[in-house]
């Protein structure tokens, strides 16, 4: 075997070992490195009451309500499998709308309500011009289907 082949084999073995080690590390980190809980995870293995955590999911359509005090809002965050009721007092981010993604920072109360101290809006991977918004939903869907290729990247 020529010297350069020896070096190539050595480097490939080293790289494979390195990638294997990182994959194991990432596998071990898979829960800790997540930025937030989704409602399903919160239902299956809830964090301790009062522990600071983040909850991420979709704001369910029709669930957003302003409470009697005028500054507290309540809404339901779901992921299609489980839901968590959330309360928040404060200014809502611009992108916060029903049917859109949200990340709430706060803590789980004993009654299962999530008290949020801070809300972050999460947007999806779809980029669509604003003009399409003024059309009816059906028209907009058609234009989106025509202008994007291959549909949603999921």
């Amino acid at each position: 075997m020529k010297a350069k082949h020896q070096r190539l084999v050595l480097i490939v073995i080293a790289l494979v070992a390195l990638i294997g080690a990182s994959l194991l590390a990432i596998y071990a980190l898979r829960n800790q490195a997540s930025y937030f809980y989704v409602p399903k995870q919160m239902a299956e293995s809830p964090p301790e009451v009062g522990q600071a955590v983040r909850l991420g999911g979709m704001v369910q359509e029709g669930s957003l309500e302003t409470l009697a005090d005028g500054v507290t809002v309540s809404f339901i965050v779901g992921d299609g499998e489980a839901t968590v009721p959330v309360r928040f007092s404060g200014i809502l981010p611009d992108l916060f709308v029903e049917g859109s993604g949200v990340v709430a920072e706060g803590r789980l109360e004993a009654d299962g309500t999530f008290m949020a101290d801070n809300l972050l809006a999460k947007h999806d991977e779809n980029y669509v011009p604003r003009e399409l918004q003024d059309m009816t939903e059906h028209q907009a869907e058609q234009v989106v289907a025509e202008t994007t290729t291959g549909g949603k990247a999921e």
Partner: protein
Amino acid sequence: MHGFANPKRFLTIARWLTPLLLVSGLAIIAATSWYGLFHAPAERLQGESVRILFIHVPTAWLGMGGWSAIAIASLVELVWRHPLAGLAARASAVPGAIFTALCLVTGSLWGRPAWGTWWEWDGRLTSMLVLLFLYLGYISLSQAVSREGGSSRIPAIFGLVGVVNIPIIHYSVLWWNSIHQPPSISMGKSAMSGEFLWPLLLATVGFSLLFGGIVLARMRALLADIQAEARLRRKALGAADA
């Protein structure tokens, strides 16, 4: 490929290719930025802030591409002892670091209106910051080696090891729940309207040309340094003999 190993032949090609890449890259970036600022439509939910897309995404791709280039050049240097590969790796580090920093800055500016936060310790954001630190480490290491003397294999090994971070950045939004949305563009698929997609791809071509031009310019500068040093050494030896 070994034809380009000859530094003389490389220099004759690089001499005219460098300005060509720099000028065409800057022209395309200027055109797509103009389009992005004044002609691109506002996005349905994000509104006007979407215009930063045409800088943020190309710099992110090239920040990752720069380290991939370092890793490939390092492999070629370690295995085939290609004389220009080490130089190419060193020359890619500074533009790679600058593009990564630009991606982080534009991402932070975009995050404030879109998500409501300048910075979060999220998988995608953190792994991109780690990439910037890897670049800074690589630059200091390769400079120390070239100044203090030492094997150029040490930065090459660092360049190869650091490439582990690139797939982590890419998959961070898929493996872990992240505030950053999953990729809009993947092989043959796009969740982006044409008004955003095509100018974005063109802007990426422009930034790539600029990146290539900077790398060639830096390789020429590094070669000139080596030549000047060799000439000084010969002179010093000649003076000692006389």
